[in-house]
């Protein structure tokens, strides 16, 4: 059963990674990063049961705290740039090139 959970978590992680690469809307890109963090948490919880110690669950708990703080900062930055440009597309943010 462990393997099943791990493959599911790998799939979710990869889907999130593809999302980061293909989507343009900064908010959706960030949601895909959150999906990747969730996939990590699933792996941690699964390995905690596999290894028979609770460290994995503790880490998953910490990841949730960190993700919450990260979301606040990230969305604050995205809202700021949106107010300036009236757009959340990462393509419109293209002053920085080479």
């Amino acid at each position: 059963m462990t393997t099943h959970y791990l493959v599911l978590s790998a799939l979710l992680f990869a889907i999130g990674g593809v999302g980061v690469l293909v989507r343009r809307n900064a908010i959706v890109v960030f949601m895909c990063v959150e999906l990747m963090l969730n996939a990590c948490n699933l792996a941690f919880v699964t390995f905690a049961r596999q290894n028979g110690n609770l460290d994995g669950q503790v880490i998953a708990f910490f990841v949730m705290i960190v993700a919450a703080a990260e979301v606040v900062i990230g969305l604050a930055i995205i809202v700021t740039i949106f107010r300036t440009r009236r757009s959340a597309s990462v393509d419109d943010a293209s002053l920085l090139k080479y």
Partner: protein
Amino acid sequence: MNGTIQAPTIEYALLAPMLVVFGAAIVGVLVEAFAPRYLRSAIHVPLTLLSLAGAFALTIWQAAAKGIPTKAAAMGAVAVDGPALFIWGTILVLAFVSVLLIKGEDHFVAAASAVPGSAEEEQALHEGAAHSEIYPLVLFAVGGMLLFPAANDLLVAFVALEVMSLPLYLLCGLARRRRLLSQEAAVKYFLLGAFSSAFFLYGTALLYGYAGSIDLAKISTAVGSVGGQDTLLYIGAAMLGVGLLFKIGAAPFQAWKPDVYQGAPTPITALMASGTLVAAFGALVRVFWVGLGGLDWDWRPVLYGVAILTMVVGAVLAITQTDIKRMLAYSSIAHGGFLLVGVIATGKAAAQNASALSGILFYLVAYGFTTVGAFAVVTMVRDAGGEAWHLSRWAGLGKRSPLLAGIFAFFLLAFAGIPLTSGFFGKYAVFQAAVSGGALPLVIVGVVASAVAAFFYVRVIVLMFFSDPAADGPSIVLPSRGTAAVVGLAVLATVVLGVYPQPVLDLAHSAAQSLFVR
């Protein structure tokens, strides 16, 4: 349910430098909440500088008077060992210098929430509003930088990585001029940083699954003993590596660096180029040497390739740059490559590892000071709209202000690694360790890359001294005392480390002698 928990032991004295920095940051937040606006800056600057100086003094006191501990502190979460203390000292001094630069001029936006170009922004500028929250944010970032290279398990490393990065994401977006660029840099840095920390985390998960623990020491013992799950180990190590290499800006994960360095306010760029790089290298070396030390036959070829790619990319792409800060960013990428040469120069013998480590430590000190100095000079060459960022504007600077141009040329020569500058001994120490570790081809690539980079630095020097200044060329602002002190200190460090490096080399060597605690 027995309901009793054995109270944890925390070595407060050992962790004091870090606790002082975090404590000062929290006091700073309280100042922000309760002090009247006109007093805030007057409280923040001394508070920040004193706390950094105090933390530095505590670090020295720990190393000199109390000896280097041989056991991890705080229930095995933080390893305060020789290299960690050396790195702490370096980061604290570099952060102190960067704070002097932050307070120097008006680099930061008056009101971050006002839309660029709006009447509101105009009004905020007119009233002389300022974000004094910058000081506590910098202190939080510095606290994270102190924790990151000392993290003894991967959970602390992850938390420290975020503590270090989150304030930097914010600070990136707060430049006073060219605000669109600055906000864009913040978004890019944030999204890519979050993406890379997801990789770091998945790597941690797989290593936890492999070893059953996140302690670096336990992972290290598991590498030799657990069988049948090597795939977890390899993929986990690779993904952990991606997360760490992203932070140091190694190719192919270097894309964020020029953008972010260009967009961020210059003092913050200086802090990132020096402090973050030092912290990330400390963590990289600890994770790869301590946690994955038994796997070195597998990661060494990969890092070998990454080092070559990083040096080449950094040196070659620097040539095509026209923005002074982007050029310095590519130079920072190339220096990351040179430092990676030191990371792979491990061997069976402890002496080999110690010499590689002391090379890396010395290089980090030398490069950190020079890069802060170079960015300090960048803040002083001004156009009407802020810093004169385009390289062509720097033409003929040597005729207009020979002293400043001379200092900048000196820094560039130190980047190139010309003898009698600190950069020379830094490169020498790292390359020597690599040669004795059997990585001669890598060293050859490194020397060639240095030569290519030197070509570009010399071109900038020629531009400054041998071309005619434009009629409406940039003006050199009279530096504030803080900025002048930064430039003076950086010149002094670059000269002293280049002429008489022995004391610092000895210090680095004795810090590296005990290697990492496990």
